[in-house]
């Protein structure tokens, strides 16, 4: 049986893993230094992480260069799937990251600006390489897609955008709830379920994990295929192994 995945996310700023408190606060002094990305990656590898996501929160040329170095070093030591996101705007950016050792690239704002990038990436590297990351915020009974790290509204409906991304060749959707991110109050179960039921590709839930129960909830009720979390792992509250043992006890298939 296909296991549900547990994915630590490493936000990288200037070659160091950091964690902002909430969307949009990353540049305004809300950063907490967490450590060296390669050390953390190796630690999560040993704990049994199913995958690692690296996110360049500077999204600048300088940030990209240091990310290439991080990915190269991680790929020498961690033999598991690696995804890179943040500031990927062109096929060339994708190629650079894949060559460095990433297995997938995650695109967000660039896909909103030019949705053809999804197709072009899927055609060149295969759908399995192209992850579309969606930042969604609740607005009444719908969820709106935001771009540029949650700062700009697009007016798009999150479910519609997820469908379109998949029809253009996205192989996976990462759904970040802007409302839930950084609150530790749990994932947004409803939008996760709506998107998961609307698309044929795996959906990774992100934003809001504060407890082990939250992770079980979004996999069961939210119908997510994977859970992504950052602070819960970085600050030593739980190890990946803790999460998996807990999920297994709830009869959720995980790789132990």
């Amino acid at each position, binding site marked *: *049986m296909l296991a549900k995945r547990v994915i630590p996310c490493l936000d990288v700023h200037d070659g160091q893993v950091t964690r902002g408190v909430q969307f949009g606060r990353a540049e305004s002094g809300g950063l907490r230094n967490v450590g060296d990305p390669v050390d953390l990656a190796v630690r999560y590898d040993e704990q049994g992480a199913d995958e690692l996501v690296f996110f360049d929160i500077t999204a600048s040329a300088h940030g990209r260069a240091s990310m290439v170095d991080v990915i190269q070093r991680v790929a020498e030591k961690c*033999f598991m*799937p690696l995804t890179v996101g943040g500031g990927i705007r062109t096929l060339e950016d994708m190629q650079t990251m894949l060559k460095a050792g990433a297995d997938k690239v995650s695109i967000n704002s660039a896909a909103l600006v030019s949705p053809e990038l999804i197709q072009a990436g899927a055609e060149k590297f295969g759908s399995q390489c192209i992850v579309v990351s969606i930042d969604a915020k609740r607005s009444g009974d719908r969820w709106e897609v935001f771009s540029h790290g949650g700062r700009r509204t697009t007016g798009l409906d999150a479910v519609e955008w997820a469908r379109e991304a998949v029809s253009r060749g996205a192989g*996976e959707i990462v759904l970040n709830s802007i409302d839930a991110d950084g609150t530790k109050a749990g994932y947004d179960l409803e939008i996760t379920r709506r998107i998961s039921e609307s698309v044929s590709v795996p959906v990774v839930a992100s934003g809001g994990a504060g407890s082990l129960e939250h992770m079980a909830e979004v996999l069961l009720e939210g119908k997510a295929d994977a859970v992504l979390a950052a602070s819960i792992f970085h600050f030593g509250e739980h190890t990946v192994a803790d999460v998996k043992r807990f999920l297994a006890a709830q009869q959720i298939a995980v790789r132990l």
Partner: protein
Amino acid sequence: MIALIDYGAGNLHSVEKALRFVGADVRRFVSGDGLEEADAAVLPGVGAFDDCIHALNRQALLEATARFIRSGKPFLGICVGYQALFERSEEFNSCAAGLGVFRGSVVRFSGKDGLKVPQIGWNQIEMAKTDCPLFRGVPDKSYVYFVHSFHPQPEDDSIVATRTEYGERFASAVWHENVYATQFHPEKSQRVGLQILRNFINLAEQPPAGS
């Protein structure tokens, strides 16, 4: 020396890094020249069947790969490198002929009952053979990493080395004589994957049968 057949496959670097990590002396081959000198060969791959076959053909690697396989030395196909060993693919608009080492075609997952396609993630391998050297020391039902929408359907059941359940039970690895192939990615399957690659390089280090 282990030859890594380099036709631009997306996972080439990962496979190379993993092989080196377990101690292999790896050399990339962008053409068929000298391929026969290798002790073993690995054909990586992700993406589309036709792209793989066409790229091999363009670089004069298709015939060289077929020749290498006939030489009897250990050969490992990974993902699309596994699919390429079959006769044909039912992938959309596919018209390329595969290597035809094994009979059968490459088919898509049904996607029925809300099954997500591609299959992305960790799934279990059930050993269909107990004596396959590639899986020495790998426990039954180990989790390995898959990323694929298609899988081969071998006509000859006796070549199936492992099976995996994903809406259907498919052949997740095959073994026949010197040819080993996996639908999953050993280079991305942590400890289990590294063990499989280590087993493969051990095969390459053994003297060829009959000598």
